């Protein structure tokens, strides 16, 4: 099986890797680039634990082939905090509200929530729940996640 050389941008950095064409973007991020923040929950686009932005669009990286990333721009959870380690308000609010337990779904939910707040800075609870309907959490019951997103949204609006 011949591998394909892929050049792409991840969190603003130019990167390249050799991908088997059957490998998903999630496989490539985790196994070739060492970015293990994105998780594989289901591998079939149902759970959202692998959520990343592809050219700004929220996608499940398990439903993207690594070779499709050629020339694109990818944002992962690893790019969410500032380079100096300062957490994004969403990350901080998730801690404050205890919006995670095992943490497996958290990177995907943070990436998805950030995409939501960029599109809609003042979402209703219903809008948050529908937007995050593709991010499954088996620990929290979602309520604390929703509160954390609402609180982060309020802070971001105040700061703007």
């Amino acid at each position, binding site marked *: *099986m011949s591998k*394909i050389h892929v050049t792409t941008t991840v969190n603003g950095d130019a990167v390249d890797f050799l991908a088997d*064409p*059957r490998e*998903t973007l999630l496989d490539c991020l985790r196994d070739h680039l060492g970015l293990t923040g994105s998780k594989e929950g289901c*591998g*079939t*686009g*149902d759970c*959202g634990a692998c*959520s990343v932005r*592809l050219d700004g*669009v*929220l*996608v*499940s990286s*398990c*439903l*993207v*082939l690594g*070779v*499709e990333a*050629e020339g694109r721009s990818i944002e992962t959870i690893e790019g969410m905090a500032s380079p100096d380690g300062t957490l994004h308000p969403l990350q901080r609010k998730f801690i404050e509200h205890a919006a995670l337990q095992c943490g497996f779904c958290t990177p995907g939910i943070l990436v*998805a929530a950030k*995409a*939501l707040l960029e599109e809609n800075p003042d979402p209703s609870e219903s809008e948050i729940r*529908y*937007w*995050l*309907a*593709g*991010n499954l959490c088996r620990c929290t019951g979602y309520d604390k996640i929703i509160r954390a997103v609402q609180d982060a949204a309020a802070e971001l609006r105040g700061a703007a």
Partner: protein
Amino acid sequence: MRYHSPLTFEAASRVAAGASGVTRFLAGGTDVLVQLRAGSVTPDDLIDLKRIPGVGSITREGDGGWTIGAAVSGAALGATPGLVSDWPGVVEGMGLVGSTQVQGRATLAGNLCNGSPAADGVPGLVAAGATATVVGPEGRRRMAIADIPAGPGRTALQPGEVIAAIHLPARGAQGGDAYERFIPRTEMDIAVVGCAVNLRLDGDTIVEARVALGAVAPTVLLVEACAQAIVGTRLDEAALDALAAAARAAAKPISDKRGTAEFRTHVAGVLARRVAVTAYNRAKGNRAKGAAQ
């Protein structure tokens, strides 16, 4: 698996037509990659369409119609206000497919070619009278969307043929469309029954109608008897009863884990009524807006 990323549909078609093994076209990938993962379909040749210029474009044509490239995502449809205004039923059908993440990738053309009888994106297209540009070894042709589904997982496309774009007609005056499905929860599920209605009014009277039912037969159904039940009416109670009866008569569902045949047949009538009212109100709203201008 060989990965191809051709720059024209003709080149994509040549790869598919010349391949001896299993081929798949890759648009959004939300079905193809799941099949790949499950091992149910392992393509020898995977042909990615997304490098073809224009494949991700939504274009309003000179006649007021719309051309939607094969790789346009559901999210992109919803982010095009003119399209949402003209064909809300088409957009809301596709918008029901999967999560926000899936919406970022899933396409109308893929929803059609995946061949699910329960595809939420398809009844709206059929009701709208949409067509597809199909590119194959013999050249290009236009097919009615209604003629493409051939059964669960099957289409009427010939070997080597690929959908390049989907075309919606001009909305025109006093028209409206709508789509709804029944699922036993609020989100993230597959239709038990789906129904799309597209109609046009003259004053308060329906003069044209197309009614499509999903998930009640091996393919989407365009039900002429449903259209006849409401054309010439003001969608009064008698017309709605006749519409529901025609929808139930046309439904030929199976019983499966999502619902019994009896339940699906009943719901086909409920949805037809409900969706027709929404389409009718939208058509009236369009007229009011036109009059105000």
